């Protein structure tokens, strides 16, 4: 049922009947609103508009986004993703439209990191080479410092006279000599010698 029409108040005014013809004012308003939506989609939203138009525009934007048609362009999408990733690794977000891909940035920086590290190693090596002592430090132990049991020496005091009936017991005598020399050798090793 047609009632009083208020084309300037499309949100709160009376709703025209479905079969009613659109008035010239309505057509003009629709055209204006369509232009407004086109501009908004093109990124040229007018700085000022009526509250009703702004509300309608927001509704239209939401409907468009919900319908899945509000996809970003490839370049825009890539720049946003790169910016987010850059922030994630601690870098600054790149300004829109001037994004350097992370892989490319790393490829640019890696050789210089390698070169810097190599230079540091080279510098350290040269410093060590220059600073190395030129002398061999020899810690001399005077012969008197060696105890008798650390020396290679005749086995006579250890074995003593060999009785005739034990003349063939060389194996037992050698066991005695070996055990004695092993003791001395171990002591010598423990004190940091041979």
């Amino acid at each position, binding site marked *: 049922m047609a009632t009083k029409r208020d084309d300037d108040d499309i949100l709160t005014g009376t709703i025209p009947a479905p079969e009613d013809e659109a008035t010239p004012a309505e057509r003009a308003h629709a055209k204006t609103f369509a232009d407004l939506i086109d501009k908004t989609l093109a990124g040229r939203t007018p700085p000022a508009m009526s509250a009703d138009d702004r509300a309608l525009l927001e509704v239209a934007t939401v409907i468009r986004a919900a319908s899945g048609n509000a996809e970003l362009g490839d370049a825009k999408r890539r720049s946003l993703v790169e910016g987010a990733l850059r922030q994630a690794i601690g870098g600054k977000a790149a300004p829109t439209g001037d994004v350097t891909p992370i892989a490319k940035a790393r490829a640019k920086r890696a050789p210089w990191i390698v070169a810097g590290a190599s230079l540091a190693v*080279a510098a350290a090596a040269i410093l060590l080479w220059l600073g190395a002592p030129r002398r061999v430090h020899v810690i001399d*132990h005077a012969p008197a410092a060696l105890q008798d049991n650390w020396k*290679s020496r005749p*086995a006579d005091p250890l074995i003593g006279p*060999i009785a005739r009936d034990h*003349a063939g017991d060389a194996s037992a005598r050698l066991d005695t000599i*070996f055990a004695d020399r092993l003791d001395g050798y171990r002591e010598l090793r423990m004190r940091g010698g041979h």
Partner: protein
Amino acid sequence: MKLITFTVVVALAACASCTDRSDKSEPGAGSSVTHVTEPGDAIDQKLMVALSQAKNFHHKAKVYMSDGDTAAAIASVREILSLRFPPNAPEAEDVRNDARALLARLLVGQGQLDEAMNVVKEGLGSSRESFFTANLYTVKGEIHEARAQALDKSDVATDKAKAVEERHAAIESFDASNKIDKKLQDQLLEQR
């Protein structure tokens, strides 16, 4: 890129030069190593290895002897004579002379008296007197005794005379052995 390559090469060369210097740790090579010197008569690893090998050959010979395989025992004892000891190690001479004494006794048991005498004389050629050379003289006396006994079995008259000579030689050898033993014991008592 060339700059980077050059830098890496320089770094590697510098590291290599440091490695080279550390490898050349000989006196006078400009290295910075510390050597602990020891007198040449200190017991070292070479001596211990040689003694250990000699010990093993003796034990091996004992096993062969217990099996009655005297030929293998003789071969094992001969190995001791060819062991390489550190130069001027007194133990080397002692161990070899003791092995010679055993070897000569084994050869006497096999009837190889001349070979046994050669082995003993080889040991007695060493300059230093020791209880081991005294033992060699004892074995030498035993060889003379064995020769005398062999000559006693002969019917030839000249062999009887030779047997007497061998017995005299045996007595001289035993006396030499006793003389060395006494001399060394006196020296040891004086040192104490």
